[in-house]
């Protein structure tokens, strides 16, 4: 072997993937067992699909599924187009300081941690002293306990997410825009296209492949909603809309030590996710000829 050193090099990373990524997949058999601490995962008795059945018959099942899908659907609908619009607008500004400034600023919130983000949300939306309520009172309106209203939970989650990540997500589209063949713009100019027409007929078609790929990836993440932020924003008042599958797995599994049941719920979540990803990828491949594999 001429390149034995390279193979030596990949051993530690491969061990990492085997131990912390693939071994847990094996451990997921827990979902089909009745976990017993003393007997361990492999010694515990098989129970077939009992844990799944328990979940499907659980009165929480539909609420959890509905909350998960509604929240991620909302996030997808609102959060997906905005970075595209942002990138198209930034792209219209030719060079200069303003462009760099807009990028620098819009990118920055991405680096704020989830804990800090939620802290900021809570400070701004606090019932008494929060900025939002002070502003409402200033205009003579009544205070709102934003985080205590189940109906507002999704909007708070989605729009704060857009605030935090839109600039970051726009960079990929900006890269795609930078890759468009300049002769197309020349041709558009000769044909007397306005800026708006140029966006419609050159820019947008040019970034469709990128848009499709990002869309597939986003749909593939529908069930893998950011557990951290939902969990931190959750409180007893908004729980009706804020309990999603991921937070349920955490509280049932780790807090109540109901390992087998929680694993089944988590596995169900991962499977739905995988099916969504494969489906969207297939549809996109057929319609637009773009896909991630």
């Amino acid at each position, binding site marked *: 072997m001429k390149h034995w050193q390279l193979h030596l090099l990949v051993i530690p990373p491969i061990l990492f993937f085997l131990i912390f990524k693939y071994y847990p997949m094996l451990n997921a058999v827990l979902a089909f067992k009745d976990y017993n601490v003393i007997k361990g995962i492999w010694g515990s008795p098989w129970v077939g699909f009992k844990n799944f059945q328990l979940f499907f018959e659980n009165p929480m099942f539909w609420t959890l599924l509905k909350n998960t899908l509604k929240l991620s659907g909302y996030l997808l609908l609102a959060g997906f187009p905005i970075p595209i619009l942002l990138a198209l607008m930034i792209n219209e500004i030719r060079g200069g300081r303003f462009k760099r400034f807009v990028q620098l600023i819009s990118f920055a919130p991405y680096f704020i941690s989830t804990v800090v983000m939620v802290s900021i949300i809570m400070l701004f939306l606090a019932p008494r002293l929060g900025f939002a309520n002070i502003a409402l009172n200033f205009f003579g309106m009544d205070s709102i306990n934003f985080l205590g209203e189940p109906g507002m939970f999704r909007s708070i989650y989605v729009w704060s997410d857009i605030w935090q990540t839109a600039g970051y997500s726009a960079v990929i589209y900006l890269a795609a825009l930078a890759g468009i063949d300049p002769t197309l713009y020349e041709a558009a100019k000769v044909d007397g296209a306005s800026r708006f027409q140029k966006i419609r007929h050159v820019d947008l078609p040019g970034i469709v492949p990128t848009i499709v790929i990002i869309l597939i990836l986003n749909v593939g993440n529908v069930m893998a909603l950011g557990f951290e932020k939902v969990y931190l924003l959750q409180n007893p008042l908004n729980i009706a809309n804020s309990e999603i599958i991921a937070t349920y797995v955490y509280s049932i599994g780790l807090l109540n030590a109901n390992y087998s049941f929680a694993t089944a719920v988590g596995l169900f979540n*991962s499977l739905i996710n995988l099916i969504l990803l494969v489906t969207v990828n297939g549809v996109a491949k057929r319609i637009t000829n773009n896909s991630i594999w």
Partner: protein
Amino acid sequence: MAATAAVPKKIKESAGDRIFLTVIYIILTLVVIAIIYPLIFIISSSISSPAAVTSGKVWLYPVDISFKGFSVLLKTPEITTGYLNSLFYTTAGTLISVTLTIMIAYPLSRRTFFGRNALMMVITFTMIFSGGLIPTYMVVKEMHLIDTRWALLIPNAIWVWQVIIARSFFQSSIPEELLEASEIDGCSDMRFIRSVVLPLSKPILAVLVLMYAVGQWNSYFDALIYLKSANLFPLQLVLRSIIIMNNSSGNMDAMAMVERQQLSELLKYSLIVVATLPVLIIYPFVQRYFVQGMLVGSVKG
């Protein structure tokens, strides 16, 4: 629209285009304000007097500048321990993660590497399917990592996305001719990595360091599930207990009720600033590299 037609040809932009562009400038300015305002508000609040913060007097500039919040934070043991812990996790974690990422990304970038495609599939599969929270927790438990510092450094050490970005970078920026030339000279692969690849890869190293460092500095979930001893807690976990769960720290108990309440409000702003400061200070310097690296990575996903 007759006026538009009458505009002399030497002016490039038509009236419609100029209006369109102006609208874009206005929208982008509003976007920038919407993003930057909350940040300014928090910084201003953190250096205002407690009374000014609680009475809602601060809305843009700091009012009655005072650094009381920060001085209280400095004297709070949980926060200083958390800060030191976070510094440790960030330094050690970044070192481990970047090393491991390069160890797999570079071989994967070599076209002749045996098993390249299979290995690539093995690692990308983990992006779309995972065993889940509980099975992973069980593995960490089995390895006796629970309640040790290793739990925050090892189980999430490699991010597949970073491997993909680094691999694309190596593929597109290390000319194959260099490798051929050095092979003729009898240079080993290790030596080639050390003296050719790494010196040529500063932009991607900057990106990896930044992403992993920010990830470590900001992470709290692993600490939440894997750690039990308070002396190991990173800053984010301390932050959560003080701001989100409203557990005021012991240091403040001795103060008068009103003052304490005002101060605890102010403390939240100071804490946010303190927890975010390191990232925001480095960010403008590395942002350029970062955008570059992301662009390189996204060209060949």
